[in-house]
């Protein structure tokens, strides 16, 4: 009840902050990139992937989406925390009769909710693009859901760290830099060890089981979230 109320307030606070256009740019941007990819070398790609056109399109989509997922987490976390830092509104927000735990929870849920929306746009856009490219109507839905949403679960630790940094530090240059570096590192994800969190959104591992990084992400992400919120509760407010 309280959390829903707070979420409504958080959504009100980011009104006119152009967050939704950004979310759309992230979700559909990846689709557009992929569309350009196919437009440039349609015949080549279709011939190359003739055995499983949908599967190849999805795995390339996944590859393109991971960097924008990580960058998105950093930017959105920074915007959500930034509205409080900008005019030092923490002192007003936290002097209201509500628990700090729920304030932090609302910010985290909002961040993940917005990213979930971006992933959904990506999924829908992918289907539309696939149909436009005449990949056939035999859409592999399980695979679609897997590449659309499992990376988000696997990236939960990254989101939790970004939110923690953005909330703790008034200077948003630091969390944004961490976000950019993380994005770059994730692009070399395939070469990283299986236990490096920046590899997890790639869902690639030695056991060939995409659920493992997703489960790891969920567990570690929640742990970091709890640590962040404990710190937030104890923190002195400037």
């Amino acid at each position, binding site marked *: 009840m309280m959390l829903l109320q707070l979420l*409504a307030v958080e959504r009100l*606070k980011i*009104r006119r902050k152009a967050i939704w256009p950004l979310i759309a740019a992230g979700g559909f941007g990846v689709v557009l990139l992929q569309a350009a990819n196919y437009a440039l070398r349609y015949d080549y790609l279709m011939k190359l992937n003739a055995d499983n056109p949908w599967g190849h399109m999805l795995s390339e989509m996944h590859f393109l989406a991971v960097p924008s997922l990580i960058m998105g987490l950093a930017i959105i976390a920074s915007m959500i925390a930034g509205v409080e830092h*900008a*005019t030092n509104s923490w002192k*007003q927000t936290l002097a*209201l009769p509500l628990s700090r735990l729920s304030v932090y929870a609302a910010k985290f849920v909002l961040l993940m909710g917005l990213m979930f929306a971006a992933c959904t746009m990506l999924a829908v856009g992918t289907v539309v693009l696939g149909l436009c490219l005449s990949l056939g109507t035999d859409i592999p839905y399980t695979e679609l859901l897997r590449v659309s949403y499992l990376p988000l679960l696997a990236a939960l630790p990254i989101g939790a760290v970004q939110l923690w940094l953005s909330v703790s530090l008034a200077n948003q240059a630091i969390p944004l830099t961490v976000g950019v570096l993380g994005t770059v590192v994730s692009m070399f994800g395939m070469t990283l060890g299986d236990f490096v969190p920046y590899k997890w959104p790639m869902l690639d591992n030695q056991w060939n089981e995409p659920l493992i990084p997703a489960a790891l992400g969920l567990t570690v992400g929640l742990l970091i979230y709890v640590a962040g919120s404990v710190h937030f509760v104890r923190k002195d*407010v400037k």
Partner: protein
Amino acid sequence: MKTNNEWVIETSGLTKAIGRKALVQDLNLRVGRGEIYGFLGPNGAGKTTTIRMLLGLIRPTRGSVKLFGQELKSNRIEVLRRVGSLVEYPSYYGHLTGRENLEAVRRILGVPVGRIDEVLSIVRLTKDAGRPVKGYSLGMKQRLGIATALLGNPELLILDEPTNGLDPSGILEMRELIKSMPQQHGITIVVSSHLLSEIEQMATQVGIIAQGRLIAQESIESLRGRSKGRLSLRVGAVPQATKVLSAIGVRAESAAAAETPRAGAAYDEGANRILVDSVDDEIAAYYVRTLVESGIEVYRVEEVRQSLEDLFLKLTDGEESL
């Protein structure tokens, strides 16, 4: 069970230290119901730190805060529901309109939507409620801050430097607004400032803080008595003048023994000067006449007003000598 004379704010041994440095030390604040409590102190004395502890924004190193007779630490949410606050510079979301800013807080407090219009009209922002707050003047932002603080019908209003950065008419307006609240709404107010004159004009009770310590806590009348103006007379012979004045029942002290006046210091300070309590013109004329008729020259008569700084010096010195 609550009694009528319980303290709205009661702190005991409240201390905040960062490392070894104590920002606020052993504060025992007592604020009674319906008071306008002026929290006075120079910049950096610990006013804002104290107020942040009262609101649970920072954790005391030692000591406790009781609001409405309840421990703040264990009843934070319940207690804060009855408190409205404006800490230092106003907090607002610049990209949102005045009304949206209030709405963001209203949803948390759970008061009816109509309350927004009420508080907007109290601070006279109804007309500008539809504009983004980043376009407001500082005075308007400050008023919006007051409106936000009033939104939850608080019993206690804590205002930290509410007139900071306002122009004279803004200050006057803010002062009238603050003064009207205990009368109209029965609210208890704590208002901090570094200006004695400002506190003097609205407070009923005053707490003075310097270097993190509460050095005085008393009614405004009693403080006024301490800081009232005095009459400085430059005379030909100090001992005789003192004697003559005491013969007519006036206690005079030589300026050297009292604090040095800041005004009119163009000549040798303290030399040949005596200080008496400030009086009306007729009585001052009577003093002068008595002195002159006794054969004592009177060179200058001037009103010396003790500044807050002097008062602070006096108060802190007093503490040290205890």
